[in-house]
């Protein structure tokens, strides 16, 4: 009896550790969600974005301003200003103009990581491509290597940084998918702002989880990667491109 009790207790503890398994493949809550502060970003997750261009409004830049505010960017559009998201108008062969946000595509095979001479450019276990600014020497190889023009170099001294988003002169930076928010179980600022505007053109989620909303939408609709020919396996997908 006591042996059985001990085994049952062990099984329950194991289940609690594994995220309360109800049946194989069904969990009460995802391990990726509700991650403890002392737990590392899990390699089982791959964070991604789906941009629905049918919903993305021309002239709306709520995602851009939300990004600037969240990360303490100046919001300037000069060539020397850091821009983590840009709104772009794309004209197709028939002359139809569509608007889309363009930012770091968080590639599975990131060229910026390949060319970085110091290892400052890196991909986190959960697929987010980041710059370790402690190691960045500002050589800007990654700026050249990125096919999406997603990286910015900080040319001027920065003051009044956000405590969660350290930024400084001489480093390269780009969209972090709001990594400081993801680590606290919040969605990126651009996604939140798009929903607040009522457009809901941005969907954030785990590409590795077949039950996540983003995976199910990508399975159901034609979700395209920009420059899919480069085989970079981007985490930002576009619907209606």
């Amino acid at each position, binding site marked *: 009896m006591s042996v059985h009790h001990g085994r049952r207790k062990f099984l329950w503890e194991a289940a609690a550790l594994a995220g309360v398994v109800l049946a194989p493949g069904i969990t009460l809550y995802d391990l990726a969600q509700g991650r403890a502060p002392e737990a*590392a*970003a899990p390699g089982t997750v791959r964070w991604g974005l789906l941009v629905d261009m049918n919903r993305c409004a021309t002239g709306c830049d709520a995602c851009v301003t939300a990004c600037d505010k969240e990360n303490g960017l100046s919001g300037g559009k000069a060539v020397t200003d850091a821009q983590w998201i840009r709104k772009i108008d794309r004209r197709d062969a028939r002359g139809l103009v569509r608007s889309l946000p363009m930012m770091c595509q968080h590639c599975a095979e990131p060229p910026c990581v390949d060319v970085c001479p110091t290892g400052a450019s890196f991909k986190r276990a959960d697929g987010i491509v980041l710059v370790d600014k*402690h190691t960045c020497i500002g050589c800007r190889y990654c700026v050249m290597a990125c096919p999406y023009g997603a990286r910015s170099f900080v040319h001027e001294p*920065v003051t009044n940084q956000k*405590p969660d988003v*350290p930024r*400084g002169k001489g480093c390269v930076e780009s969209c972090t998918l709001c990594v*400081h928010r993801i680590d*606290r179980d919040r969605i990126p600022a651009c996604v939140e702002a798009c929903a607040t505007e009522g457009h809901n053109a941005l969907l954030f989620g785990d590409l590795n989880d077949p039950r996540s909303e983003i995976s199910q939408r990508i399975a159901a609709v034609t979700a395209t990667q920009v420059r899919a020919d480069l085989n970079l396996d981007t985490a930002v997908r576009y619907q209606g491109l």
Partner: protein
Amino acid sequence: MTDGSRDRCLRQIALFAIALFVAAATLAAPEAARAPTRVPLPAIEAATGERCVEDTAFMRRNHMELLLHQRDRTVHEGIRTIRHSLANCVTCHAGKKTGRVTGDGGFCASCHSYAGVALDCFECHADKPGAAVAEAKR
């Protein structure tokens, strides 16, 4: 003068010299400690909060090691524990008047300028407390 009286006299002079030296040393010692140095001593303002995350003596020697390890864990692995984070230091040690750890009399800046050690953290990091640590502690 006899040999005996000369000896006594010498002994008295020697004793007087020793007494004078000891007295001078005793008087001069506190003066030396209080003497103005070329570099003003760091003004360390008392921090808010009950106690530091580690012993004060340990922190004086090793705070940079803690910050170095924490920074790599946070940037590369996404581990955002607050105990040894720079944001946590800033939250308690920001000056009551200035609200910062840098600048004149700032907790970090005053000691680093006294020791002549470059303080690079705040080229990029915020030197004022943010909301995240306060929220996490709540």
